[in-house]
């Protein structure tokens, strides 16, 4: 009876969403850099683009003529070159970042404008631990009379005791990465320091037969804070628990003109990975 009453009420409460046209302020056309340097030996990559007007329907443009290098504190320089196939800059040689060493990105655009990131220290790799596929029953979204089994990753990781650790979780289903902004998963060990961190990632849904890959990326505190702000700015806006929209400040700046905003982030990540097949 109670349940039936509830369903009578449902139509009363349906909140509604509609796409609208509003006059938006003019574009700032800002440089955006996204670069991650991992501790896995690979061809490292950086992407440099320009923002365009929010309502612009043309694709984001890539800056393809920049000079790009990554510098380490111990004097190593890693040059990058543009690859027109996918619009990324790739390091000229394979490279693996070294834990405890600081790295930064330097980019020159328009021949003379230098953009730089802050130094970011490569964290120590933390072993991801055992990965299991756990499951729950939920109503089938297509047929509410039927239930379906949803699998999700369950991982227990041992957090190192010595320091503040910051993590980002990356999930792949059959080698395709989950990219929805609400699925940016970051964590710190404030509540678990030195202990097992149990995680049930119920938002990442797999079906029987899928290949489930999970990466645990150790990141620096500033990377964690940046991702956290980025996530809040794209997922909670418009809800009553949302914060006020704001500029997502990263760690990049214009050397020649500090008033000129550079969006995006350059950071280091130390990756530990585990893969299973969901059965």
């Amino acid at each position, binding site marked *: 009876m109670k349940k039936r009453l509830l369903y009578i*009420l449902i139509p009363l409460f349906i909140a509604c969403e509609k796409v609208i046209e509003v006059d938006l302020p003019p574009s*700032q056309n800002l440089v955006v850099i996204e670069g991650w340097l991992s501790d896995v030996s690979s061809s490292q990559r950086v992407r440099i*683009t320009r923002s365009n007007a929010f309502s612009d329907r043309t694709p984001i443009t890539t800056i393809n003529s920049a000079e790009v290098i990554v510098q380490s504190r111990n004097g190593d320089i890693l040059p990058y070159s543009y690859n027109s196939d996918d619009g990324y800059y790739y390091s000229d040689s394979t490279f693996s970042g070294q834990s405890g060493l600081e790295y930064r990105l330097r980019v020159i655009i328009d021949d003379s404008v230098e953009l730089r990131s802050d130094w970011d220290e490569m964290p120590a790799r933390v072993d991801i631990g055992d990965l299991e596929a756990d499951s729950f029953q939920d109503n089938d979204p297509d047929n509410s009379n039927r239930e379906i089994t949803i699998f999700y990753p369950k991982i227990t990781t041992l957090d190192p005791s010595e320091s503040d650790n910051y993590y980002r979780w990356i999930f792949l289903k059959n080698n395709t990465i989950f*990219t929805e902004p609400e699925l940016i998963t970051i964590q710190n060990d404030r509540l678990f320091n030195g202990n097992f961190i*149990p995680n049930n990632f119920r938002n990442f849904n797999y079906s029987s037969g899928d290949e489930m890959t999970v990466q645990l990326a150790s990141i620096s505190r500033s990377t964690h804070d940046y991702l956290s702000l980025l996530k809040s700015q794209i997922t909670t806006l*418009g809800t009553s628990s949302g914060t006020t929209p704001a500029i997502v400040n990263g760690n990049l700046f214009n050397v020649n003109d500090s008033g000129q905003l550079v*969006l995006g982030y350059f950071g280091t990540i130390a990756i530990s990975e585990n893969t299973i097949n969901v059965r």
Partner: protein
Amino acid sequence: MYQSYAQKSSLEVPLNFWGKLTLFQSLDSIRASGIKLAYSSNKLTNQEVEVEKNLTIGDFLNTIKEKRIIDVIYEENQIIVIPHVPRDFTIHGVVKDVETGEHIIGAAVEISGTQLGTTTNGYGYYSLTVREGDYRLKFSHIGYQSHESEVTLYKNTYIYISLSQQITELDEVEVLSIADDINLSETIPSINRISTSGADGQIPYFLGEVDVIQNALLKPGIRAIGEDASGIHVRGGGVDQNLTLLDEAIIYNPNHFYGLISIFNPEAVNDVRIMKGYIPPSYGGRSSSVIEVRQKEGNANKQSVSGGIGVLSARALAEGPIQKGKSSFLLSGRRSLLNLSIDDFASNSVQRNRIRFQDLNLKLNFKYSKSSTYYLSGYLGDDQNIVGLSSTRNWGNRMLNFRWNYLFSPRLFSVISAFYSEYNYTIENTEEPGAFLGRSKISDAGAKINFTSDLSPTNEISYGFSMVYHRLIPGEQQPLDRNSTTNNVKLENERGLESALFLGQKGTLNNLSFEYGLRISSLLTFGPGTVFQYKDDTPLADSTIIDTLRFNRFDLIDSDINFEPRASINWRINGKTSIKASFTRTAQYLHLISNTISPAPTDIWKLSGRFIPPTTTNQYTLGLYKNLYSNTWELSSEVYYKDIQNNIQYRNGADLIFNDNIETEIFSGQARAYGLEIYAKKKRGKLQGWISYTLSRAESKIPDDGDSRFILEDHDKTHDFSTSWSMKVSPRLSASTNFVFNTGIPVTLPTDKYVFGNSLIPHFQFRNNSRLPNYHRLDLSLRLEGRDFRKKGKKRRKNKDYWIFTIYNVYARQNAYSYFYRESPIDPGTAQVVQYSIFGTIIPAITYNFKF
């Protein structure tokens, strides 16, 4: 009076005369009987006196003294008779409801034919000191039949009056005799009163729930940010800047169900008073307003049960005498009926978010004597939100308050109260192995003593002090059981003693009345505790910590003192018009730490300290008040300006959860708010209601941006119009309607979009650079009273009942609650602005209410 007189026995001697004779004849006859009695025939008037038989000399002298013909002075060896000198005496007492025995607050007490009068105070008590004589006192209050009483005043007199409720039949021509011009006569501006016994206090709102806070939101200057947002903003102030009192206890979160209804069960509430301009010196601790909610006292004459059931909740109340006429009780409960949710009601997933709430109110009062009344009131509230499968959040306020009203003398009234109040939040996550129990809490133990002394009808002083010991548990988390792998994490508790001394005077000078006073408030914070020291001239950050100071138990960590002058003046131009002006300075030592648009139950409170100075506000108000048609219409227009210092602002992306140096995430900035409020209320007649309009601006500086310009506050609404009307259609049917219109709240529109991590990210360069579309909504409701007579026969029914039918958002407007921005699901790479509406449709509801 005879103490010094040596021949008391001679006063017992019977008179040797009676009948009509002159004063001098009678005094001479007494003298002739051998008693030494002196009088001066030049000074006394030789008037005729009537003397009864069988009186003693003492009786006779007393009689003519009581008739105010002479005064008698008894000296050691003689009696001196002098002319009577008129003196001042006090009439005092209480005004009660004849049926329930409850004290009536704000009833007018006037002396007919004079300008003299007063109103009963917050406890139903009044006091008037006037020259002796014969008077006609008139007692009146809205909704009650007025009452007149003859008084011969030659000594301090106690008069208690019971007023009966006005029964207005449809055809009856109402006699507009009640001089309810309190809005003109009271000294202070900017007060809104809501009485649940009046017609305007019974208007149903969302889902047919009668709610005093929803009612307040239709008054000028009082706003919520939106429909799904808890917390109210008074005259541009923050949601934590309202001192919400339930009886005398502080309430920290007055909301249930996303702010759509308040915790104040309408069955148990008597009245609400909101002071948003001038705040008397006896109140303090918050910057913007005082919201004073008083619970009913309980019917002292007969038992009754009332209640109701609606879509949202069911409620019941029982009240009655414990000892008839002397003591009474009230017990009331309410709970939500269904597991409700707004956010994702459309989802039928098992992970849905469910919410429920319940309240329990208690009040006992005991009238010990004419001069002493004791009250005990309590409240227990609980909200629960089940998120997904294993996480349960609970929060709620609870309070217990004891009050003692005591009359030291007819002119010295005191209120002594002590309270304990707490706000609790817990989260329990049962999912192994990370199961944990988290909690935060603020608890207050306080006492307040307030004396009011009536020196004359035109001069009253009040003074007293208050103390509140705040204990804050900002956050702690522990493993739920032994299998759990979470750590025990705890932020340091905070302790602070907030005290205040206050003194005020109220006076009248011809047609000017004034009120002024000073509140001296202070906060002392105590150890144990840790305070970080930061490098000078650098932003506070983890990286700039240079030292850590540790404090032991009871060590003084920090102290603050503030002088808060307050003043208000009322110039009564004539019987229909007055002008008022006021200044109020307030200091606030407690801050709600929340950087979301609407506060969440999880938000913690924080005491001022080394890095978080108290918020101080100076507010100036000027108003013009006019009553028309024998006070049927009440009009007011006010302007205000508020200057707020040390207003809390947050860094972008502030990390406020389990952060032990929260000062690194916040700033103290400047804010200001100003506006014009216009209010017109029709208080009597078949059609009653009000119109309210506010033109305002609220803005603040965000030091983080390095920008010294004022930026609009998130809750700013330029135009805000609301109106509410109710009408008796037939003896059984009445209808009411509300309409609101306001400018959309500020919104930050993106200038750009960019790609990061394969997601399309909106870029917001300029804060609050646009507004949401205008908001407007119409609600209707009908109230159908049950039949007075049984179907068969003519016996009057003992029970009363009524139905309420409401329609919220009659024309189904999809008011924008917010915008959000997303990548188009159809056209990847392009972005969309999406308008989100909480209630996109019309919402009908029905409730049934009864009383027997």
